[in-house]
């Protein structure tokens, strides 16, 4: 069974099926959406079950010819890096759809359809094994988000969407050029014209080519991430979008950029990655400190969580660009953690602001008295968000920083400023809303049954990862070692730290290409 393709198709079909729903029939639309989202989750469970945790390379490959004349193919697969992102995407989208189904929803048919379309786009992105396919999904997921923010958003939604789309488009167009350049240059090196990511691995680009291509790709990724200082679409889009969409942007879509770095940047252009490693680390560090400081002073709850997300993604980039196994595994773990935690954080912000009408951080006070259960869940989420040891985020950040410290001690030391400030801003969010004089009517915001349906799975996952991170990391180890090994070689790390062998492409015993200088041993060609 082509499980991975099926996984992408199920939400897509769910979105298409919305056309069959008569207009105004909200219930039927909700059922369609729930079935599709549940189907995706079920398929993800199958994928986890069938996944070989020790194999490093692509698994469950589904390769269909698409336009073979120009090297295009429908290549979908999963490996240790994408596995948990697929799980995260399917899980978070299910919760988002559940949350949207429960509440009042304007034009549910279109709204849920677009959500499913976005899910299909993201699932496709995380499983695409072909550069062009990657690009297609990269752009495709932008469309549903454009409409979701533009139609269902709040104040300033027009400008926010326009900015969001144009800005990301700038990056992705550069990426398109880079994709074509990669394929053409690689053809000259290997004699094979392909966009297949796995076959492009290890192609011997010259240092200049590698640097330029990595730069072009990473610009697109940096905008999507967002990495400081490319983050300015973030506050507007996060503020304008409906809260469910904001949660999706932060929890799932922000992983696209990081994923690109790991999937394409490091293994394909190790020398370029090495060239840009320290600059990117510096940007990530600035993002960590800057995001924390701004989150501390942010006026609204959403912006506070949004900017904290900027800081957290800085940690992930740090972990990837350190070219260290520990840091990279921490980074992948942290991607999942951040997705879960930020979704929960936006969920709580959504509950509070929806029921109390307050958007500002100091808009409500003293809720804990009336809403002790909300306070408890909020506390757990806040602690996870500030990476308190004992929570899941701690595991990720701790190993990101251990690995980074091994390579660049100064970077890890600066990043710890972000840990301290995280405590300051998360406590500001928690204490202002929950503590203080018992003036607010807390009972209004207390968790209700559907809220538990949303929050409990997230909290359970947090607890599971905190107690047994090996469950996540065990599946990613081999893949990650294989992924970062080229960059480690380029960065001349000690051999003891490089845990995978780097395969040359083209292999040393390959036949010469037409036009290549003939090897001396073969003598003169007739």
């Amino acid at each position, binding site marked *: 069974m082509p499980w991975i393709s099926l996984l992408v198709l199920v939400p897509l079909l769910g979105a298409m099926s919305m056309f069959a729903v008569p207009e105004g029939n909200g219930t039927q639309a909700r059922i369609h959406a729930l079935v599709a989202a549940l189907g995706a989750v079920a398929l993800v469970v199958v994928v986890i079950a069938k996944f070989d945790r020790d194999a490093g390379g692509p698994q469950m490959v589904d390769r269909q010819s698409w336009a073979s004349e120009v090297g295009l193919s429908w290549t979908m697969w999963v490996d240790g890096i994408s596995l948990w992102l697929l799980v995260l995407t399917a899980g978070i989208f299910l919760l988002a759809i559940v949350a949207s189904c429960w509440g009042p929803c304007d034009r549910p048919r279109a709204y849920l359809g677009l959500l499913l379309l976005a899910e299909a786009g993201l699932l496709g992105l995380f499983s695409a094994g072909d550069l062009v396919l990657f690009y297609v999904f990269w752009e495709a997921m932008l469309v549903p988000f454009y409409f979701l923010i533009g139609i269902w958003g709040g104040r300033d939604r027009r400008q926010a969407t*326009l900015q969001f789309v144009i800005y990301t488009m700038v990056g992705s167009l550069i990426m398109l050029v880079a994709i074509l350049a990669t394929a053409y240059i690689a053809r000259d090196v290997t004699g094979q014209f392909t966009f297949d990511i796995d076959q492009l691995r290890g192609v011997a680009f010259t240092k200049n080519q590698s640097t330029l291509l990595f730069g072009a790709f990473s610009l697109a990724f940096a905008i999507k991430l967002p990495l400081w200082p490319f983050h300015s679409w973030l506050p507007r889009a996060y503020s304008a979008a409906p809260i469910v969409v904001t949660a999706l942007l932060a929890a799932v879509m922000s992983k696209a950029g990081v994923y690109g770095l790991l999937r394409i940047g490091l293994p394909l252009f190790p020398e370029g990655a090495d060239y840009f490693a320290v600059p990117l680390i510096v940007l990530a560090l600035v993002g960590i400190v800057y995001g924390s*400081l*701004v989150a501390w002073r942010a006026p609204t709850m959403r912006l506070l969580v949004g900017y904290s997300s900027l800081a957290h993604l800085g940690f992930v980039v740090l972990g990837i660009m350190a070219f260290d196994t520990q840091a990279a595994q921490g980074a992948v773990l942290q991607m999942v953690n951040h997705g879960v935690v930020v979704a929960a954080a936006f969920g709580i912000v959504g509950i509070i602001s929806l029921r109390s009408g307050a958007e500002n951080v100091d808009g409500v006070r003293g809720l804990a008295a009336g809403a002790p259960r909300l306070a408890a869940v909020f506390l757990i989420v806040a602690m996870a968000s500030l990476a308190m040891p004992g929570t899941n985020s701690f595991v990720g950040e701790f190993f990101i920083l*251990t690995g980074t410290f091994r390579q660049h001690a100064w970077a890890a030391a600066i990043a710890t400023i972000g840990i301290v400030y995280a405590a300051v801003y998360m406590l500001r969010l928690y204490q202002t809303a*929950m503590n203080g004089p018992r003036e607010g009517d807390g009972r209004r915001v207390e968790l209700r049954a559907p809220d538990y349906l949303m929050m409990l799975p997230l909290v359970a996952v947090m607890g599971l990862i905190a107690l047994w991170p090996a469950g996540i990391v065990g599946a990613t180890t081999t893949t990650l070692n294989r992924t970062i090994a080229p960059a480690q070689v380029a960065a001349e790390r000690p051999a003891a730290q490089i845990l995978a062998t780097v395969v040359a492409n083209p292999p040393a015993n390959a036949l010469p290409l037409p036009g290549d200088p003939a090897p001396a041993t073969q003598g003169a060609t007739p």
Partner: protein
Amino acid sequence: MIANLAWVVLALPLLGCIVLGLFPNEPSRALTRVIGVGSVAVAFGLVAVIFATLLGRDTEDRSETSVLWNWIDLGDLRVDLAILVDPLSVLMMLVITGVGALIVLYSTEYMEHDRDYRRFFAEMDFFVFAMLLLVLAANFVFLIVGWALVGLASYLLIGFYYDRPSAVAAAKKAFVVNVIGDVGLVLAAFLLVRELGTLDYAQVFAAAPGQIGLGSGPAELIALLLFVGCAAKSGQIPLHSWLPDAMEGPTPVSALIHAATMVTAGVYLIVRCNVLFALAPHASDVVAITGALTLFVAATIALVQEDIKRVLAWSTVSQIGYMIMAAGLGAYSGAMFHFLTHAFFKALLFLGAGIVIHALAGQQSLNRMGGLRTHLKFVYVAMAVGCLAIAGVPPFSGFFSKDDIIASAFAAGDLGVALGIVAVIAAGLTAFYMFRMLFRAFWGPEPEGGYDQHPHPSRWTMSAPVGLLAVLAAVGGLLQIPAGWSVLRDWLEPAITVADLEPSHTNELIASVLSVSVALLGIGVAYWMFAAGPARRLAYADRFVTVRGLLLDQWRFDQVYEAAVIQPGRDLGDAALHGFEPSGSQGLVNSATSLSASASRGLSRIENGLVRGYVFAVVLGTALVGIVIVLGR
């Protein structure tokens, strides 16, 4: 077997916390009491079993590690969820669960007027669990986890009265300072991974002497960073100012967390990592000097406090300074000895103060007390025992442990002698401020306008723990008698692998004579000023206005932090939010948007809707193509 029992000990309070926390409705108070006290008390019983079992074994055989499961395996770094049961952790567990059980029992009466009864006990149980995890952890990762979780418990309990802004602010301060300490620990762990490639206690302590040179840069840095964690947790200068503010929490919390157990975690850590500190002589000197500085500064501040709990809080800071100083000088078992006696007498003092506060309907100011010894006779006697113990009057426990530290200091070279003299002076101050508190609360005239509420004696639930602790505070020092026996040192010997500093008999004699005479002097002055003639204190207060102001402002640490660290951070954040955000980074996106917008606006002008324009464009294009073809030939 022993380790399995230790897992149960660890699980019991956690279970108590979970059951209380998840109870669907408000459980009855009796049930809450049973679960809250029961989980800790049973844990204490099991710890006693562990202790007895270990006692029956050979000295070398007293340590056991147990792995629950492999927590994470990163290829070149493996961390297990594991605990280590050894004499040091068992000693800590005994204090945590023993004193903890007494204090939780005490709380059942103290908190009975509070509506969040269940939450209190759930959080207390959570604290006990976290503290047990801290001392039981077999590697640095779970040490850090426990370290942070006790911080969280402390945060929750300081902010227990969350509708009081001062409590909320104090909780936040405690949390943030603790996070700074966590960062120190975490950085130390990074260094350990880089240098040794492991975080497991056994492996680290075995490999460190060989792979990290004595006095080398990494060794000093590791010890210093570990000490940052200790300083934050144990209220050492310059990270001390959260601890007095932490008195916003209920009094049992202050007794358990901010006197007996959590704040001494720093001492535990230094003793646990004695191998690492022994490798770093300079860092150890820094530790000792910091301890001495703290014990002196805190003692001076305690002289002028008006709030009975703040007197005790500053005295805690000061007493932990003694332990830290001892640990820094290499007198590890001396530090642990003082930790033990301090846990007894400081918990006693806090619980006694709690009875007073409870009897006066929450009044904490010494100005609203006085003459209480006629009303609260039992507490008066117990508090007097506590004061005698902390002041170091023989044969009470504080005398032995404090003298051990001072004598060790005298044996530790020039620096030790200097610090020892500071410690002796502070011992006098300690005696003075403790008896100032005692005399002002229990002697002298009743306050003007009478008490806030007629003081009523407590029931057995509050009295029994106080009585028991009073006995322990009185006789606890007999564990270790100079020139007699040293039960504690022998017990801890397997855990302290480096040479423990042992004072000579001459040192001990000098220390005893000096400290006892200074302590008696302090008590005498306090009697003269507060008991014999209460009017004198006002006269002296007027005479030292400047010094008193400085002390009342707590040496103005908070003001300096506010001006030097917090406000600049706020300003920077505001500048980023209102300055850089709209123009700088927004500029990038704006330029991208406006560039594309203006480009399309310019191009759209060509599309003028006139047919002949389009035709002209076609002709022009054709001509251009023709020219290119012709020229290109």
